């Protein structure tokens, strides 16, 4: 029989191996999917995993798509570590894009290049305002932040549509629902000729360092996470749960808004109804696959960006539906959640007749049969204390 056995210490090895195993499972299931759809699985894998990295240009496109995912994912990592479930980063991203657009539209031919600073600040502010609504409702009325933030995504989409179909429609745009293309001064400076990469990636990498320092080297970051790990301990320590809530939502909202500003004044260059492509949702997966760790999120953002590009290519070259991207993203998240079990548990093969004593110092998880006894206060502590004396 196979059973799970609790590890005494979470396995560090599996903490790193689990995302790789999850990726492997995703690939295997992906191959099966291609076969069932009657497509060449080798070609499919090539499009998803080789095409996006086969050249310098491909890499730059990968980074262009990874940048918003990375920025939003970093903010969400802070948020999720505080046990605040902001599911509406997509909405905050859109409002950030809208605020940034308003500033960018103020520019004319003589405007200084420094307007991009205002554009970015406006974007971050927009995201904060939108996330602030969620924080306010949760704080004042204890409204569930998952529902509120998610619902606000759809409100944000309607706001966007209203603006591009209405007041902000480009008069010279042949009635297309979009704003005019931003002045060059208001567009994000690109890093090199021949690539769409802009300063966003530099901001994102600075964000990685900032978030790491905040989480692991400041008392405020520590307090923020204790609220998520053990609320009673946070109350005992005197860490304010309200401050944690507001910080979590404002940081993640601000990051999402910043990403929106970068996107709309960067690769897109104008506000259109096609701004929402699900970065805000994909970033949730990015944050978790990256272990809510700023460095891990760099890799998961690249991976998720690969899926985006692969999905687009699969659509154009293999005639696969666009939803294939979402399928891959979901597969990866589920595989990861399953593989993460191995961090805290390990699989053991055992025969009930001759159970041999395992040498290491682990406890076994009694699967079933424990009944109400498992709820005994010191139930599991008993054998551990005994161990210490032996």
């Amino acid at each position: 029989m196979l059973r799970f056995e609790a590890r005494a210490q979470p396995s560090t090895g599996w903490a790193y191996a689990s995302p790789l195993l999850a990726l492997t499972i995703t690939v295997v299931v992906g191959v099966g999917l291609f076969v069932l759809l009657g497509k060449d699985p080798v070609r499919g894998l090539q499009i998803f995993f080789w095409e996006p990295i086969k050249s310098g240009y491909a890499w730059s496109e990968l980074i262009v798509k990874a940048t918003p995912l990375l920025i939003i994912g970093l903010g969400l990592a802070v948020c999720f570590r505080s046990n605040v479930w902001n599911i509406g980063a997509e909405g905050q991203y859109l409002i950030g894009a809208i605020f940034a657009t308003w500033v960018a539209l103020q520019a004319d031919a003589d405007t200084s290049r420094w307007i991009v600073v205002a554009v970015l600040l406006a974007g971050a502010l927009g995201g904060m305002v939108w996330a602030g609504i969620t924080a306010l409702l949760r704080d004042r009325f204890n409204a569930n932040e998952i529902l509120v933030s998610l619902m606000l995504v759809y409100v944000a989409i309607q706001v966007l549509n209203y603006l591009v179909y209405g007041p902000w429609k480009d008069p010279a745009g042949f009635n297309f629902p979009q704003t005019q293309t931003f002045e060059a001064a208001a567009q994000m400076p690109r890093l090199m000729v021949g690539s769409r990469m802009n300063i966003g990636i530099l901001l994102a990498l600075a964000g990685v360092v900032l978030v790491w320092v905040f989480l692991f080297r400041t008392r405020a970051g520590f307090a923020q996470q204790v609220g998520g790990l053990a609320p009673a301990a946070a109350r005992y320590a005197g860490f304010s749960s309200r401050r944690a809530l507001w910080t979590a939502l404002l940081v993640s909202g601000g990051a999402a808004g910043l990403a929106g500003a970068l996107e709309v004044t960067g690769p897109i260059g104008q506000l259109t109804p096609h701004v929402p492509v699900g970065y805000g949702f994909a970033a949730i997966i990015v944050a978790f696959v990256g272990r809510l760790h700023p460095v891990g999120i760099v890799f998961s953002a690249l991976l998720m960006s690969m899926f985006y590009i692969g999905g687009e290519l699969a659509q154009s070259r293999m005639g696969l539906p666009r939803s294939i991207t979402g399928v891959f993203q979901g597969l990866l998240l589920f595989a990861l959640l399953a593989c993460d079990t191995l961090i805290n548990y390990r699989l053991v093969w055992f025969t009930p007749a001759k159970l041999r004593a395992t040498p290491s110092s682990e406890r076994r998880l009694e699967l079933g049969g424990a009944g109400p006894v498992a709820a005994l206060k010191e139930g599991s502590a008993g054998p551990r204390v005994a161990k210490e004396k032996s």
Partner: protein
Amino acid sequence: MTTPRLQLTGITKRYPGVVANRAISLNVLPGEIHAVLGENGAGKSTLMKVIYGAVKPDEGAVVFNGQPVQVRNPQDARALGISMVFQHFSLFDTLTVAENVWLGLDKSLSLAEVSASITAKAAEYGLDIDPARPVHTLSVGEMQRVEIIRALLTSPQLLILDEPTSVLTPQAVEKLFTVLRKLAAEGCSILYISHKLHEIRALCNACTVLRGGQVTGVCDPRQENNASLSRLMIGAEPPALKVRAQQPGVTVLLVDGLSLASAEPFGTDLHSIALRVRAGEVVGIAGVSGNGQSELLRSLSGEDMRASAQSICVADQSAGRLSPGQRRALGLHFVPEERLGRGAVPTLSLAHNLLLTRRDAVGAFGWIRVGALRRQAADIIARYQVKANGPNAAAKSLSGGNLQKFIVGREIEAIRQFAWPAQELAHPLGGPGEARVGGHVGLLIVSQPTWGVDVGAAAQIRGEILALRDAGCAVLVVSEELEELFEICDRLHVIAKGRLSPSVDRVDASTELIGQWMSGLWDAADQQHAAEADHAAV
């Protein structure tokens, strides 16, 4: 010779890395009240789970009434006639007594029939209970009666009771013993799990002692004394604590007219609590759990900031509305009852857990100096003999006793730094005069200091508390263990139904008196005691 009711031979249960039960044999005769004595972690709970079918042993045989049996689950056990009353009740607060009992029974009976049989059983054993009352209106002792009646309704041949007296007043314990003796006289065998020696000697007629998962002795407890039982249980007698008589100093904590409605639906409201803790004394609060202790502690620690500002004074400052951090700045440090999840974050390292209440390793802009933090944790681990895998060990990897030592160490060291900031941390505590060297007096509030802690660690923690007192700090201890309070306190209060009794000096207190007060009876009968206590407190 009569057939034993229950016979265990060679029961062994291994968990990875630890043998919880090693070749345990146990014989229980019909009508016998058999004690299973052992420290926390000695393997008592595992053995009971084996008997009750909740855990499957790796080796060994269970013989019930002369028949070898395989108890695969609790249903099997109940079918055989084995019932168990757990330490922590499984009752639904919102349902009535009868509904709760009904849930565990055969569905063929109607609720009215169940109510009738509850009343009948209750009358038979003198367990006074109204089947129609909702459980949340019951006291803890009454809840236990419900659990016992539920067990009795299955007409058990063997009743297992796990630490049944931890929630009872001394008077209620006597009542329980009467019931158990009556049951035993009728032929029901009772397995009585406890670590309280005097109870076992008063009640049981056989005793199996466990230590480290093994049987270390089988005896007739009536023939033994506390010292001999204690030797069997822990291998040695706990060292006696040295208590120095001391003249208390200035008032450090003054609680006056603290009234507070509970923040939780089934909590206890506090009614005009008055309390004074002075430098150089340990004040204890006794009481059955659930009588307002947690509410009082939360308002003292600052986790609940709804009390009026003047009702709590720390070092002559109104502290009722201060946050836990602000109270720490006044020298108030608190060790909560729950170690994992409140006193420490389970998944974080010991070093990081220091940051909950300490700022020593925090620099400008809240920057955490990781090296200093680790050294500080290593210091506490060394000083308080915490068995841990270094400062980076996760809090949850420690046993209860060791984590408690770490948390107590964290708070006591904080108080030392507060009271003697100029001195080196490692400097041993001096005499009472030193308390005001730094111009401050620290205050330690401890809840259940040794709950679930092994005897060695418990003695060490009590010793540290007394050392702090002897150094001139003020200590408030809230505990359900009367023996512990009598051991370390200078004065005692009792909390009952959210009201606090006047204080009584330890030398004037007796178990009977405290037991009576635990039922809330101090107003009428104890006017003169109250007067004395007030006199002593002024």
